[in-house]
């Protein structure tokens, strides 16, 4: 059996948010992925939740009983990848 503390396992690799921190957010009233993101920063990092959101959704499903089909992924907004302010500056649609 694994010896290490299961609750120290990192769900959000980018911001080092542990399973324990996500569990705490759920205990404190988080019901959506966006709630967990706002309360723990999980999902705000470079990968924009691509590696942690499925696990967070599963924990919400287990805690609230809500079907996975109703646990919306994080709100998706551009940019979908890491870009610079220079990239945004150059992206100005012509009038």
């Amino acid at each position: 059996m694994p010896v290490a503390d299961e609750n120290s396992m990192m769900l959000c690799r980018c911001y080092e948010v542990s399973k324990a921190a996500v569990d705490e957010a759920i205990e404190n009233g988080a019901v959506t992925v966006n709630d967990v993101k706002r309360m723990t920063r999980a999902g705000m990092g470079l990968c924009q939740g691509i590696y942690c959101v499925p696990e967070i959704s599963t924990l919400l499903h287990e805690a609230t009983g809500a079907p996975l089909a109703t646990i919306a992924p994080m709100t998706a907004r551009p940019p979908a990848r890491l870009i610079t302010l220079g990239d945004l500056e150059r992206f100005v649609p012509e009038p």
Partner: protein
Amino acid sequence: MSERRISSHPLLGPLPDVGMVSLTVDGVEMSARPGEPVAVALLANGIRQFRTMPKSGNARGGFCFAGRCSDCQMIVDGVPNVMACVAAVRGGMRVETQHGVGVWAESTSEAAS
């Protein structure tokens, strides 16, 4: 060092020879195939830790190798937060382990102006 590179493969064939280039990693000079990702060059040279994380100080060594996670961010030619699995090796490149959050050195802004 050559055991880390896969020089022959039953389906892919032999790894073609190329003229190697030099780069420095934390001040130590090593050779790499030009154009390969910096993270690959480091792995080929036996380096498995690319950065340390801000909260825990734990070292990371690459997870996705596809430019999606934050494991391989390094300082390249003075620029922090460069994804080493995406950045292509150039001869003379200066690579440094990034410790924690990326910080821009003051000399970088001088060089840009």
